[in-house]
């Protein structure tokens, strides 16, 4: 649409005006269906939150199953929980909290246009702690296989409540397994984000991918914040009677 088609007649001096900026300098990462970078960032953040709500319901179903079976046999669950190693569990909780801190600092470093080395450093630290978590999880799973407390035909339980114990360990593997899968996906996402950060993609103008990946990472941390006490801590004060 050409401009100046109104009845307004410009004064003679303005016959050759300086070419107006038809498209004010747009950011290379601004998609054409968004007006501004703010709008784009807001839409991405909101989209991630909607996804996280579906994730809450996804894990929520498992927490619901846990609640029902624990309600059916509270002592059985306490006895079963007693067999988990509280120190590995607590260490993993601390590791995930540290990884959430490095993640938050990675977002902040992008947000404040830090050098790519700083951004990449925080992101690599986050991935490293994520992998450490998975390593400890692998050690724990190995122990469970050795001790024959993996649900199935070879499940063995010495205690008073073998059936609830098997239900507990079914839920343990389902919940921590789904959580570990989220961690693996999270590390994969971080690898992509780290690659982009290395290519100088992020600064104060554009850091939405770091922010949104961070939301995912923190969410997975929150799931573990609930898994840890519900699985590892309920049997600590239980005395086999």
């Amino acid at each position, binding site marked *: 649409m050409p401009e100046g088609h109104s009845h307004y007649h410009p004064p003679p001096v303005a016959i050759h005006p300086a070419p107006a900026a038809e498209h004010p300098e747009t950011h290379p990462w601004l998609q054409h269906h968004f007006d501004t970078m703010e709008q784009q960032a807001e839409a991405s953040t*909101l989209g991630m939150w909607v996804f996280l*709500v579906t994730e809450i319901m996804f894990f929520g179903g498992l927490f619901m199953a846990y609640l029902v079976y624990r309600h059916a046999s509270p002592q059985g669950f306490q006895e079963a929980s007693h067999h988990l190693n509280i120190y590995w569990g607590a260490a993993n909780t601390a590791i995930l*909290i540290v990884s*959430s801190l490095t993640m938050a600092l990675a977002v*902040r470093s992008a947000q404040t246009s830090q050098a790519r080395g700083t951004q990449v450093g925080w992101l690599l630290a986050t991935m490293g702690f994520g992998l450490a978590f998975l390593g400890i999880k692998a050690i724990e799973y190995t122990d469970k296989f050795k001790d024959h407390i993996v649900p199935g035909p070879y499940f063995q339980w010495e205690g008073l409540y073998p059936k609830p114990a098997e239900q507990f360990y079914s839920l343990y593997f389902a919940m921590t397994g789904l959580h570990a899968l989220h961690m693996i996906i999270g590390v994969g996402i971080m690898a992509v984000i780290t690659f982009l950060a290395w290519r100088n993609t992020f600064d104060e103008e554009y850091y939405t991918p770091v922010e949104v990946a961070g939301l995912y990472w923190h969410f997975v941390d929150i799931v573990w914040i609930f898994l840890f006490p519900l699985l590892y801590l309920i049997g*600590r004060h239980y005395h086999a009677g």
Partner: protein
Amino acid sequence: MSGHVAPKSMYYAVFAALIFGTALTVAVAFIDLGALNNVLMLGIAITKAALVVLFFMHVRWGTRLTWVVAASGFFWLLILFGLTMSDYLSRGWVPGTWR
């Protein structure tokens, strides 16, 4: 374009609170407090989750829409737990029914 930039000290403070909460919940687990164990355990977990959501996930500075969406997830979770447990907890209340 830049959202709210929180000072680094805030992130370290939240981190310290999260680690403290973890240590506290582990310590409390070794003491037999009966039903109070569960209350404290979940209370600490919810507090830790709230700290992560508000500060690490920047919801504290988020739009009203983000607040509503985030809260709706937990609200629906309560409906899931509430309606399901209203069934399981009330079974056998009427004589001659289940159990």
